[in-house]
């Protein structure tokens, strides 16, 4: 069914609203919905829950409801990410306002019996706050302090049904832009909102659109950068999986604003579910006449094509990404010319990140003033963070700019796992830095993160505790950049390799104090002379750890010890006088380097010890220590 004008879109919206009726209001638990409409079980279909068998849970729920004759009263739907990945798989029941966590396939029969037949909450699947022991069916503490703009529809609608998106104000912003605004006023609105690129750079989106629009050109291109490469960041993928239409609609709006008729979505081939949902969304949008010729009866034509990445981190850089779409090696090129002047196939091209696009429709519908009231002076709106590592509540969180790290990690994230001590938070992926405890109360925005030696990046936020060695973390990131450096410029190709070698030397206990100076000097040279963002930011993990955790470097170099007990070469195992001489350790030592007679204390030959820790794991008397 092609929608031929705004009236048709609005009629479809009115008709589709019933799909969401149940979800707008929170009714007290009832066995039968008052209006006789089916209740909805929203099963999380995000990556984490998907991996923990959520599709199977959805299937079994359907079968069980069918068996109990309830299938016309309860509908099972798969959604995008709820964000609370730690407790997945998650499902929410509307309109009962009940959220069940850590659901497994064996819980299905109980859910149907207790919740739907007997009409009471299944207590054991409710979320329990580990600090207060309080049970929550809704309004979980995890969601306090969050403001979901980019993630507004994830977990709220079923992403594979365009009508649900339309009912949730979908494509209204497009209609507004088509019939009530001009390209100039659209660009003006985005500029006024203060929206900046969410992929990491933080370039003002409105200005980028304006630059692409300038100058004569027969064709211009819109590219959606979904080549999410930062290890530990998965927000773009979750948006595409949970709300693909919001990205398509924003690309249409950008197309209209800059005068483009063709868009590309460049996505990692490692994201099969996101690709699948995008393909469905594109097909449906074409069916409804929201992509293609004469959209909603206007003169505007626009279509979108998916392009697949092939596993190269550097392709997140816009010039490299453009080369990859052209079918070549994804190597960056010197800017200027910027893609806005000469991009894909030499034409002006606007490259925006997925999360940036996900903010556009809300800005158009609710106005630039609304958006610019959220956030800090220079960073407006919200940012999605992928909170991971040693934190209790791993997941996706969206908070207003200016929220502090402490609020994110301790209030939303529920603090550090196993009651350990916070040591550092790493933001910005391999281009970012490690932020120590003293900056926990810094309000986060683009500028503040740079001023403390890190950067926003795409929003990965990895929490580390006192069992993480910062030298080893720096080495880990350098290993990544060495691997991903495309090899085009010498500074990055050779420089990162030398940095990595020096770090390896230090973690093996062979470092000298001169190495610290050479690390700093080389880091600065690489930052100044690399061609693209990858090389320019590659030394950040070293510089920030050197600044905040210099004592750990010194411990490795001077004391030849690793305070966190991570760097193998610096570990020493020793058997104390607690040893009862049970000989268990000798049986498990792969190097046969433990000697001693039965019922006598044993000794480890340190020369031959492989430092595997097998003896310590096996000892039943706690007699073996690591130091």
């Amino acid at each position: 069914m092609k929608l031929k004008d705004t009236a048709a879109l609005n009629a479809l919206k009115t008709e589709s609203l019933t799909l969401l009726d149940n979800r707008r209001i929170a009714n007290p638990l009832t066995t039968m919905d008052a209006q006789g409409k089916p209740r909805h079980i929203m099963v999380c279909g995000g990556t984490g829950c998907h991996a923990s068998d959520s599709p199977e849970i959805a299937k079994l729920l359907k079968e069980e409801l069918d068996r109990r004759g309830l299938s016309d009263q309860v509908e099972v739907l798969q959604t995008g990410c709820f964000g609370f990945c730690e407790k997945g798989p998650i499902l929410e029941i509307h309109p009962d306002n009940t959220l069940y966590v850590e659901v497994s396939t064996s819980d299905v029969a109980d859910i149907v019996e207790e919740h739907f037949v007997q009409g009471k909450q299944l207590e054991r699947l409710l979320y329990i706050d580990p600090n207060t022991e309080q049970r929550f069916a809704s309004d979980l503490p995890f969601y306090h302090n969050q403001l979901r703009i980019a993630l507004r529809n994830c977990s709220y609608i079923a992403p594979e049904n365009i009508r649900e998106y339309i009912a949730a104000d979908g494509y209204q912003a497009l209609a507004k832009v088509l019939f009530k605004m001009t390209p100039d006023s659209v660009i003006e609105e985005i500029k006024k909102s203060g929206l900046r690129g969410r992929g990491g750079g933080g370039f003002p989106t409105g200005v980028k659109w304006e630059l692409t629009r300038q100058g004569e050109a027969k064709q211009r291109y819109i590219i959606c950068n979904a080549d999410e490469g930062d290890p530990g960041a998965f927000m773009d993928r979750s948006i595409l999986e949970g709300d693909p239409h919001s990205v398509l609609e924003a690309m249409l709006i950008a197309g209209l604003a800059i005068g483009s008729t063709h868009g590309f979505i460049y996505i990692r081939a490692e994201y099969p579910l996101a690709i699948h949902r995008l393909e469905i969304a594109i097909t449906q949008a074409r069916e409804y006449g929201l992509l293609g010729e004469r959209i909603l009866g206007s003169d505007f034509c626009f279509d979108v094509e998916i392009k697949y990445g092939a596993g190269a981190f550097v392709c997140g850089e816009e010039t490299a990404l453009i080369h990859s779409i052209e079918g070549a090696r994804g190597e960056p090129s010197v800017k200027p010319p910027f893609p806005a002047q000469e991009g894909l196939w030499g034409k002006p091209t606007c490259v925006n990140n997925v999360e940036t696009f996900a903010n556009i429709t809300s800005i158009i519908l609710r106005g630039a003033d609304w958006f610019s009231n959220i956030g800090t002076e220079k960073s407006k709106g919200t940012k999605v963070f992928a909170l991971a590592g040693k934190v209790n509540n791993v997941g996706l969180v969206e908070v207003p700019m200016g929220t502090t790290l402490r609020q994110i990690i301790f209030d939303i994230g529920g603090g550090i796992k196993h009651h350990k001590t916070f040591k550092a938070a790493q933001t910005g992926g391999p281009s970012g830095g490690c932020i120590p405890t003293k900056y926990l109360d810094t309000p986060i925005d683009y500028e503040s993160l740079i001023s403390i030696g890190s950067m926003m990046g795409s929003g990965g936020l990895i929490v580390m505790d006192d069992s993480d060695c910062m030298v080893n973390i720096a080495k880990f990131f350098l290993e990544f950049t060495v691997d991903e450096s495309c090899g085009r410029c010498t500074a990055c190709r050779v420089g990162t390799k030398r940095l990595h070698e020096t770090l390896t030397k230090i973690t093996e206990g062979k470092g000298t104090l001169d190495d610290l100076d050479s690390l700093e000097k080389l880091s600065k040279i690489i930052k100044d002379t690399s061609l693209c963002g990858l090389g320019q930011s590659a030394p950040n993990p070293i510089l920030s750890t050197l600044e905040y955790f210099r004592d750990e470097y010194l411990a490795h170099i001077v004391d030849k010890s690793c305070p966190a007990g991570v760097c193998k070469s610096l570990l020493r195992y020793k058997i104390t006088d607690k040893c009862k001489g049970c000989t268990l350790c000798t049986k498990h030592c792969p190097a046969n380097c433990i000697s001693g007679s039965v019922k006598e204390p044993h000794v480890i030959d340190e020369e031959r010890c492989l430092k595997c820790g097998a003896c310590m794991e096996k000892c039943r008397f706690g007699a073996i220590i690591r130091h």
Partner: protein
Amino acid sequence: MSNNNSLIKDPYQLLDDYIDSLPYKKENLILILHHAQGLFGYLPDKVQWHIAQKLDIPSAKVYGVVSFYSFFTMKPRGQHVANVCMGTACFVRGSEKLQQEIESQLGIKTGQTTEDHLFSLDSVRCIGACGLAPVITVDGKVHGRLENTEDIKELFAKYRSEATPDAQSEISNIEPIQDVKHAT
């Protein structure tokens, strides 16, 4: 796209049919390589040369692209491809240890294939299942919270018991893109 007949049909013919169906050819080199890897399981010189001829471009260009992207492989893969996630979240939750454990259980290093061509081991940069860290994927399916030796043994034993005897001669007929196995 490939179908169930691809075991009978000549994969080169299938590849040619696919290339013929594309409106633009040279620009879609990466897409074609994805498809070819889906048909052949890997991209040996012969396949690269075939594509270069078909698209009328230098084979050096094809090789340049294949060698640039870690998704493409020029070596044949095992029947099952295991990828250890080396994203930061998994790293701080012990993926390095997990990788060493799998390497010792399979008796190969990362990037290698077992002698019986049953398993290939690789690493991948973040698959976005950080809530389950540390994770591995086997043939695209995610297995999370792998923290003890026994769970890992059990997992590989399960795949070993399902293995078909002709692992070595099998030509993979998985659809490219849809079933991502060769990510590194």
